[in-house]
């Protein structure tokens, strides 16, 4: 289990719990996020919001909220994860490279 902020991109995840106030809970519930929901990070910007695939919609979620959402890797998915992984692999490579660049810059 991990907060959504640490979850990898392009992997199917299962939502475990949402912590936070009543408003946050209600809002996320209304947008389709309840425990057990399958989600996937479509893209993320370091320090900025992420795009999350939830049911058939795409949600932008701010960094501040990501820590409140606990997810786990979803092995028993109803979708074909293999194909997903394949589709994302190219993108993943690009991302890895740029992360290093980002690190170099700071170092």
């Amino acid at each position, binding site marked *: 289990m991990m907060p959504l902020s640490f979850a990898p991109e392009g992997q199917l995840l299962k939502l475990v719990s*949402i912590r*936070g*106030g*009543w*408003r*946050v*809970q*209600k*809002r*996320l*519930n*209304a*947008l*389709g996020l*309840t*425990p*057990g*929901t399958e989600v*996937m990070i*479509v*893209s993320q*910007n*370091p*320090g*900025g*919001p992420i*795009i999350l*695939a*939830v*049911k*058939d*919609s*795409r*949600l*932008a*979620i*701010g960094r*501040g*909220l990501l820590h409140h959402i606990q997810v786990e890797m979803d092995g028993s998915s109803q*979708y*074909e994860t293999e*194909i*997903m992984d394949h*589709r*994302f692999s190219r*993108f993943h490579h690009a991302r890895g490279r740029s992360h290093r660049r980002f690190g170099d810059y700071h170092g």
Partner: protein
Amino acid sequence: MEKNFTIALAGNPNCGKSTVFNQLTGTKQHVGNWPGKTVEKKEGSFQYKGKQITVVDLPGTYSLTAYSLEEVIARDYVIKEKPDLVVSIIDAANIERNLYLTMQLIELGVPVIAALNMMDVVKEREIQIDVEKIKKTLHVPAVLMVARDGEGLDALKESILATAELKGKYQKQVPAQFSRDLEVEIQKLQKKIECVPDGEFSLDSRWLAIKLLEGDKGVLDDLENDNRFASSIKEAQTFSQAYEEKSEMGIDTEIADAYYSTIHEIVASAVKKPKVKKIGFSDKLDRIVTHRVLGIPIFLGLMWIVFKLTSDVAAPFLDWVDGVIGGPITNWVEAILNLLNLSGTWVESMLVDGVIAGVGGVLVFVPVLMMLYLALAVLEDSGYMARAAFVMDRLMHGLGLHGKSFLPMIVGFGCTVPAIYATRTLENEKDRILTGLLVPFMSCGARLPVYVLFATIFFPENTGLVVFSLYVIGIVVAILVGLILKNTVFKGGEASPFVMELPPYRRPTLKSIWAQMAERTNAFVKKAWSLILVTSIVIWALLALPVKGEGTFADAPVGDSAFAAVSSAIAPAFEPAGFGTWEASGSLITGFVAKEVVVSTMSQIYDVEEAEEEAEATTFLEDIWEIISSFFAAAWDTIKSVPLVVGINLFDEEDEAEPTALMTAVREGFEESSGGRGALASFGFMIFVLLYTPCMVAVAAAKHEFGAKWMWVSVIGQLALAWIVSVLIFQIGSLVI
């Protein structure tokens, strides 16, 4: 007499609800605000088989909890106004999430029709929906639609009529299944509520029982002073506390979960999707548009186009409107007054200098607003607006603002009026008002002539730099004021978390864009004209009324007018800022009418001779010809200005050299009032023009959007701020220099 019906449209944002509304009602619409709220209310009507059916468009919401203002409005409408039925519009391509609201509507006890919209997208994505199963499992009628193309509209109308006529026989059937403990408790509470002795009481008892268990704030507030429910509320609280201790989930999450499980079952049986979740076109485009490096340049580029549309591209039409009102229309009014033997009287002066000038001042903004609404409609309908908020969120977040606040800010550099209307794209009322308060600090185009005049007079070496610094100061002040407001007035309450839906990209339709442009511009003209007319007449009257000298009403030198007297009375207030002359304060007063008027008032007051344009007498037909031909000339100028959209052209507009006589007069006036520190005082004056109360049209817009209270906060707050800053500049500057 035939019975007429009232129905409401409910649905998620981006489900095509307004398209359905427009298709149903056509041009028979009324746009206003929900009473006491800044949320837009749309109402319309249509005829079907001899019945008049009124349609109320509820705000787009994801659920009916009391989470946001929009949700409260939607829920209260259904509970309190009791429409004959609610059409729940569902984005069928996203059916699982959309059905959540539908379930809540059904739970509310109102007859519901499920309108499955966007069936074209469903087909495109190779999704199959068994509508008969949906009907059966939800126990409501359902229709399939492609609202954009008007498909399924007749079926919807037919279903509306049939359902509305059956209203008396409607039996609520809730598909959601809760855990046994919860269900037992709901039924227990329900019975208790049904025993409440009251004829008036008409909330659905099951719904109320659930809301009490959830501890719904809105409902509890409503029932707070109602003793009849005290014991039910208490019981619900005891139960939910015990329940929450026993299970890990809160009762409200449990209930949401139960709805979604039911929905999941319905969808599993009625909807067939291709197995693989496709990374679609939208996702691919999003990778570019929301890219961490490319995102901001793309955003800024698009904002630049919006800014140019509302300034340069709208300018020829603005001039055209100005020309038509100042030329032919004024001439016609004068001609009519001449026939009535009123020529040269105060009536003529009031009509021409007060009424026409005032109304003209409103109409001049029409092209600007149409351009803004065109841009907004394209950005919103295409789905980009949500991405813009996504991209800018990090930057704006530090200011306590929403990512979407950036757009109004940019538009504000062109004109404050459309910028205030652009705040409408923000979902949260707090964000909307805070953004609206900050927008006037973005220096609008009309303030530029003032800067240019003063900078040319007092800083001939560094004109460009001084003008640029004013723009920067405006931004800095906005940031500071934003931070202060965020930590004071707008503090408290849970900050709204940044979470929003990114709708799939869609091609905007001409029809929808035109509808939005026409409707919103129309709303502005209707709302703004009265306030502006009154203000114009007051200022005209002050200018026309002589308080000394030998002038008569409407024919007196400016220096003898009540206007001069009022200005002189105010002038001492500006002494600490170094421009305590009646000429300066007077031009600031007229600056309230429109900022660019500051310059023309100065030339009027300093009595600089302006070459009177001797208008040639024209015939009516010549006038008409002139209006038409100049319209096409304006259109041509607009087309020519489109390439300008990419070019930067801010400071080249130092246009016609101001009459040197005026410049000398202004210089002498400021040097004298400031004790030889004219440059310093003039800088303070420019800062004052930058920061003080925006023009009356902007004030009218603020009242329209945020209500009278916030309008006054903006008017008085900015006046005070402008005074403080310009006094500080002069006083501190005097010590240094």
